[in-house]
């Protein structure tokens, strides 16, 4: 960026704008960045992290104006900027030729072996839950999940969320194993 990125002072002001408590401001910053990445990913961006950081930089550069004039939830201002940046990013290449995902990516086998190990690291009840949750297909899968929710005395929605959290833990575990693995 020829105009240069935000200064440390601007960044400090941005954090104060998000929250006067520095720790809370840091959390808020991370949360906004994570959500921007989520939105960009949902829209099919290939570089959601870079676009999120670019959006944050644009907002940070406007911090003095924002402090004086903006009223409302800062997250919504970040979103408004992010949306413009997204539209700019697709202008030169409206149908970016990004190859679709490989139906059988080569890394699946390696990942499955890490997943197997990571499943073993879960509490027995969580491991059983995630394996039972993924049993069956189509209608029987739906019935199975209802049964499982009733058996565990959860609402179906609470069960979906619980399994999603277990998936997140498994993904983190796999990522850390992949990082630990010596590179060829």
């Amino acid at each position: 960026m020829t105009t240069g990125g935000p200064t440390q002072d601007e960044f400090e002001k941005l954090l104060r704008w998000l929250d006067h408590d520095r720790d809370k401001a840091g959390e808020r910053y991370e949360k906004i960045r994570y959500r921007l990445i989520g939105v960009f990913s949902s829209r099919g961006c290939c570089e959601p992290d870079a676009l999120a950081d670019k959006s944050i930089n644009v907002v940070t550069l406007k911090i003095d104006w924002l402090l004086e004039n903006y009223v409302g939830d800062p997250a919504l201002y970040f979103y408004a900027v992010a949306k413009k940046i997204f539209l700019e990013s697709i202008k030169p290449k409206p149908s970016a030729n990004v190859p679709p995902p490989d139906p059988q990516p080569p890394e699946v086998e390696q990942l499955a072996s890490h997943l197997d190990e990571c499943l073993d690291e879960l509490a027995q009840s969580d491991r059983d839950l995630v394996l039972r949750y993924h049993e069956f297909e189509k209608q029987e899968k739906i019935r199975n999940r209802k049964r499982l929710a009733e058996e565990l005395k959860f609402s179906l929605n609470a069960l979906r969320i619980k399994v999603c959290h277990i998936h997140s833990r498994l993904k983190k575990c796999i990522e850390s194993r992949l990082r630990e693995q010596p590179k060829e």
Partner: protein
Amino acid sequence: MASRNHDQAGIRAYLLGRLSDEEQQKIEERLMVEDDLFEELEVSKGELIEEFCAKELAQSEHQWFKQHYLVSPEGRQSHVFALALDSLKSSIPAPKRRTWFERFQAFLKTHPLAFAIATSTALVLVVVSPFIFRSTPQTSYAISLKNTISNRTSGDARFPTVPLSPDIGELRITLLLPEGVMRGTDYRVVLDDRSETRSLKATSHDENSVLVVVPTKSLHEGPYLFNLYAIKADGTEQPINGEYRFELIDSSRSRSSPKPQ
């Protein structure tokens, strides 16, 4: 709850490209500030990937999802994760629900002191119990139930009635297997009283039937049905089509006299 379901539908529509620009903007603004909705996004992404891998999405949805979320690094990673999970599903049999006795055994294995205390307590109980408890003989009530598939030709919508009385301690219910259905190496039975379901292990089985024993103290008056699952040698389950229905009737009110064993 209704709003949660509404959000779930909205998020699916968002991820599958079925929203107008205005609706998309509204939902994205909410995603920035509502924790529950963002959580729903995370859950729905996982579910849609699962449906994508299982080819359960409509053709147009499949294409949209492939060309949007799945081209993002997060989407690609989640896709590989779902495939890895799928490949494990076939190699690891899903765990059976452990009985209380199995859970108790596991607990004792990890808590030897508790084992010692439990053993001593059991010994004391064996010695003392004849002096404490008076035996109250209770009978079993046996009944055979046909699968609703086998019953279909009769046109009779009434289900067998079973008495509920304090004298009957347990129901010994034989579920007759319809012809032509897959036989399992074992069976799991799910009892449904229309308000909740519970999973039971078959007590025994042979080529043509499955026996399940249900203590009556856990039952109440009303209609019940059983769903039956054949457990294959590799540990996976296959549901047996049809159901087994019966109705429990308070014997003090029922005139149709049953035959206790």
